[in-house]
């Protein structure tokens, strides 16, 4: 992003702007999902689009996750560039055959004859007392499947540039928006820009510890880094941006400098993003480590309803601060 002019918009507005710009640019881009049209989305992230592009290009669908993802696959291989919205990533389960067995596999099964320019937008994240079925961050489910790309954007500015790239990509991309971010305002560059998939971003420079984080955990990590700076601990924070494709090198280079790596992702800990990233970089950084690699994630329990139970299980600024402090000891 080399723009020097910025504006303040919400994360939800950034979604709408990205889609609006891409729909204006390419008439093959369509948007379909539950409530995306007349009311502009359950999270108000697609407001105004139906009025501008009409009912066929911005389609309120029936409650049929499997059906709409599959419809997106069929439309994608025959020339459209569909954006399909699944209201909560928890509901990917209902569309999973079309996501994991169809969208991800059709190009491969065709021996490279077919392209699947499909974007599946969905939401992740706890923290609004949505309990066990509307709070999960299921990026590990989809990152496990070869053939899918997986994007976990941080700020609104990041989201906008990455979403535009996802829509232009000729592969199925699972684009995971954090539902606690929609109403937050961010500084977003004015005018056209895109961010490539597969390039992690160093958002804070430091020398004592590397924190590699996804989605809103990037912002929590930056908050923790500010606190740590007061203790004269300078932390390098990396925004992972995309799980697939994965930019291993940026993390490796940073850890070679800092000797310490903490991975923060809001998905459940076990068999999750943190474990995988740790192993991905292990063989390159093992002899540079001054402290065992650590990870933070949501505890291995279903999301409970009560805030008294929910907040303790999700990683937050304080937990990142404490874990960093422990790791940064000389």
């Amino acid at each position, binding site marked *: 992003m080399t723009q020097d002019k910025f504006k303040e918009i919400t994360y939800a507005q950034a979604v709408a702007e990205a889609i609006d710009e891409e729909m204006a640019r390419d008439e093959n881009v369509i948007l379909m999902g539950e409530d995306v049209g007349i009311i502009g989305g359950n999270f108000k992230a697609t407001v105004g689009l139906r009025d501008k592009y009409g009912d066929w290009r911005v389609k309120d669908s*029936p409650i049929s996750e*499997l059906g709409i993802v599959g*419809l997106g*696959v069929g439309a994608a*291989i025959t020339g459209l560039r569909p954006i399909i919205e699944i209201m909560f990533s928890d509901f990917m389960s209902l569309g999973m*055959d079309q996501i994991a067995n169809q969208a991800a596999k059709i190009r491969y099964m*065709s*021996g*490279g004859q077919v392209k699947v320019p499909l974007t599946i937008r969905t939401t992740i994240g706890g923290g609004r007392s949505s309990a066990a079925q509307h709070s999960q961050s299921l990026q590990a489910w989809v990152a496990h499947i070869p053939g899918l790309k997986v994007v976990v954007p941080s700020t609104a500015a990041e989201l906008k540039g990455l979403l535009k790239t996802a829509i232009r990509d000729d*592969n199925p991309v699972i684009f995971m928006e954090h539902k606690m971010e929609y109403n937050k305002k961010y500084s977003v560059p004015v005018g056209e820009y895109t961010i490539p998939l597969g390039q992690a971003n160093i958002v804070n420079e430091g020398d004592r510890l590397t924190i590699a984080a996804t989605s809103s955990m990037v912002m929590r990590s930056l908050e923790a880094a500010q606190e740590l700076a007061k203790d004269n601990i300078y932390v390098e924070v990396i925004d992972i941006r995309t799980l697939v494709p994965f930019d291993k090198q940026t993390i490796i280079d940073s850890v070679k400098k800092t000797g310490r790596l903490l991975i923060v992702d809001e998905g459940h800990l076990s068999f999750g993003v943190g474990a995988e990233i740790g192993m991905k970089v292990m063989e390159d950084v093992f002899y540079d480590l001054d402290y065992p690699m650590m990870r933070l994630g949501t505890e291995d329990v279903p999301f409970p309803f009560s805030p008294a139970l929910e907040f303790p299980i999700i990683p937050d600024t304080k937990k990142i601060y404490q874990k960093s402090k422990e790791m940064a000891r000389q």
Partner: protein
Amino acid sequence: MKSSYQENFLTNLYATMFRIREFEEQVFELYKIGLMPGLAHLYIGEEAVATGACATLEDKDFIGSTHRGHGHLIARGADTKKMMAEILGKKDGYCKGKAGSMHIVTLDKGILGANGVVGGGIPIATGAAYMAKIKDTKQVTICFMGDSATNEGSFHESLNMAAAWDLPIVYVIENNLYGISVGLKRVTKVADLSERAKAYGMKGLSIDGNNVLKVYETVKEAVDYAREGNGPTLIECKTYRHKGHHVGDPGLEYRSREEEDEWKAKCPLICFKEALLKEKKTTKKAIADLETSIVQEIKEAVEFAKNSPYPDPSEAFEDIYS
């Protein structure tokens, strides 16, 4: 038989059915001698459905297929050499050996793909129809499915959307009475699956799926209706698979020999050939010549497939992303 049918059109229908039959017989042979990896679901006995249905389409149209897909692809005009090579896992196959019998995907001839997941192709075919609708391309999609696929959620979700939005698609059920070993009657209350159309506000028809002209005429009307922008139709074709569920299945425990004999007597090829001869639309000699040339064509497809090399192991890492 309508007198307006040209001899050429009729013998082409017979040729397609015979090509499917011969192709499948040879796939079975290749399986028996151990040359075919994995499995294949043979279309023998059901040839009239794919043949009659695909004869209604224009070049630009689409079809969605199933795990029992060889017949659909051949009826759509796919290259039998490339199909056979794919089924043997060879480099010159349609998908360079990555698909095999059950997953051939190629947009060649508008084939949206066979599908290893029962019901998996239904939403995809519906998506092609959505594209055609909003781009006003006048392309029609025929979506084939087995009887058992109608018990999947994808069937319900797709037909509901297609009807709600008047999409240009024709859903063709091949009711061969079984899903592997489970008789439809044991798991489904309605006898005519086309009754389900009513639940979506769609027209539904149940017909004799062994009568190629009946299939042609019924699907033609539905395809024209769809092309004119009126929306989808559900057509159930009653038919039977002569062999087991797939090449390794003798298919003995779950159906009776009497039932098999009864359906084999209604073989779509024999019935159509007899009708053509009776109505003097062709001659025994012409049919025999046609059959000889198709036997030769399939023999060449088998040779082509056998002679094609296997893909290099490094190719496993190609074609994942574009």
